[in-house]
């Protein structure tokens, strides 16, 4: 039995690069985080910031070529997944660490009944007869709240709605009681009402099964709803790593502040939302300095010359910004700037 607070996953200086004819794209460029038992870690950022590549890297599902884990370690209970032989890695996938994907519509095999797809996962990792696995699959469908699970188990994915397919994906992911669940934008493709149900379901099952959950999302609402800690990613780096409470109460990195400021607020009447000017630098040609500097209104000379490290603050938040270093001479940002 594992203890609470036990570290399940420890990612150290992970680098995932894509070698294409345009050059090397450093999609994930040196990120660190840990995930503990029972914890929900949010990874947020806009499209292309490397959050999905991070999650796929953990299960070593990066399409290779062109993708490659170029450096770093992914320690699962102390074992480095990066160097694990393929057959050992297969035993981890779906069993110790499982994953839910963004697109429930296309993530299930269209010609295999859903019950069988779940049973396949069970039989891969547990010694069970076909019949037992099929019964377990029905139980899993029941667990994720699918009505008349016996009937549904025999149906093909096209006979199920998007919300139901995502429930099937969750049932499949949880069928072997994984220690870690990676949810890659699990609700992005779903209706708002279904989104809430699915998040609620993941939370409830996490509480019951005690998994560590990595919630990959671009939706700060989802983060507020589900996560204990959050890592904000920008252009392949983590720029702020904080508890959810701190992130929303006292965002530090100018990018995080921009993200929060660009959310519509229910108690304000505004015609235009705040936008972060400029665009993300090309992954093929990253600037030497801070990657956000070109869009940052506080940027100084130092920001363009040297890349900042993650600097730990008194409240435990880590932030990758020169403003929070001792040598910073420029103006400190105030709340008003973003309002």
């Amino acid at each position, binding site marked *: 039995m594992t203890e609470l607070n036990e570290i399940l996953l420890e990612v150290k200086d992970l680098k995932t690069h894509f070698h294409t004819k345009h050059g090397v794209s450093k999609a994930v460029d040196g990120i660190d985080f840990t995930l503990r038992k029972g914890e929900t870690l949010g990874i947020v950022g806009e499209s292309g910031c490397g959050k999905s590549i991070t999650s796929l890297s953990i*299960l070593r*599902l990066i399409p290779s070529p062109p993708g490659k884990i170029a450096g770093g370690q992914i320690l699962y209970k102390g074992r480095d997944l990066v160097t694990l032989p393929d057959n050992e890695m*297969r*035993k*981890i*996938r*779906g*069993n110790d660490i*499982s*994953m839910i*994907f963004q*697109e429930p519509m*296309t*993530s*299930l*095999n*269209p*010609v*295999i009944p859903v019950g069988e797809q779940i049973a*396949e*996962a069970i039989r*891969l*990792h547990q010694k069970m007869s076909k019949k037992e696995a099929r019964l377990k699959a029905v139980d899993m469908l029941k667990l994720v709240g699918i009505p008349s699970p016996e009937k549904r188990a025999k149906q*093909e994915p*096209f006979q199920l709605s998007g919300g139901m397919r995502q429930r099937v*994906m969750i049932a*499949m992911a949880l069928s072997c009681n994984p220690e870690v669940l990676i949810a890659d934008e699990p609700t992005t493709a779903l209706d708002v009402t279904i989104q809430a149900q699915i998040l609620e379901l993941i939370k409830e099952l996490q509480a019951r099964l005690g998994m560590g959950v990595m919630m990959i999302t671009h939706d700060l609402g989802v983060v507020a709803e589900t996560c204990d800690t959050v890592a904000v990613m920008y252009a392949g780096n983590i720029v702020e790593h904080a508890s959810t409470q701190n992130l929303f109460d006292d965002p530090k990195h100018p990018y995080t502040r921009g993200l929060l400021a660009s959310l519509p607020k229910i108690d304000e009447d505004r015609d235009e939302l705040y936008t972060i000017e400029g665009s993300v630098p090309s992954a093929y040609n990253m600037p030497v300095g801070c990657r956000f500097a070109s869009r940052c209104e506080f940027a100084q000379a130092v920001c363009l010359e040297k890349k900042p490290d993650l600097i730990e603050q008194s409240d435990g938040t880590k932030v990758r910004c020169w403003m929070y270093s001792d040598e910073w001479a420029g103006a400190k940002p105030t709340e008003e700037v973003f309002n």
Partner: protein
Amino acid sequence: MLMFILRRLVQTIPVIFGVTIVVFIIMQLVPGDPAVLLAGEGATKETIEALRVQLGLHQPLYAQYIDYVTNIFRGDLGTSLKNNQPVLDEILIRLPITLELAIISTFITVVLGMAAGIISAVKPYSIIDTVVMILALLGISLPSFWFGLMLMYGFSVKLQIFPVAGWDSMAHIVLPAFTLGAGGAAIVARMTRSSMLEVIRQDYIRTARAKGVKERVIIYKHALRNALIPVITVVGLQFGALLGGTVLVESIFAINGLGRMIVDSIRMRDLPMVQGGVLVASLVFVVVNLLVDILYRFFNKRIELN
């Protein structure tokens, strides 16, 4: 599924009528008067006229058509003008030979084509892939009459492994079946390869990998079944092309099948034989299409009959 098969069966009825109309009209368009031909040189006008009445050629077209269809349903495809044998009897002797040739060729098409396609797709852009795809390109480009003659020259004349021509033993079947199946195999190989490569990129393959499924199982269980859906259609169409191909191959290898019978009958202006042969070949094609649709539906339950 049963409903699907029933509905699909009902749908073939108008198709079959369409076939009879087309076959009938084509023969009307063929130049030359069968009555003149049958009466022979130097026949009197009266003899020709009498023959015309006997053959029903004096009636208006629609009446001739109705006669024609009614007779078909009675199992009467007419009488050969050449040897006065019932056309149906002649066809029934030759059809099994052609079907055997076509089925064995299709088998070669499917097995060889899919195997080559899968081998290529598993290691795309590798040396094996390149070799297989060059062979496939050759298979598509070489005309079957030339390919057949080359096989005959190589394996029968030079190496003397297989008999030159005829249809008596399994050894006789090999070269014609391969000649006929090679082009299809090449098309199926290319189709299977591209379909597999397409499927392997799909999200559900990633899901299978995330479950910990072995790469072999991913290829054969998760990918192949999905990849086969477009391939089945191609195989069905190939079978139709194959029936056409038998005409050439049967002529080259002197096989007494349906295709050669049609060619010979055209040369003899044996109208009822041509009509009967083409009709039966068309019906076989319709039946094969029906089977392909049912198979297609079996592999892909999302297909709804519209």
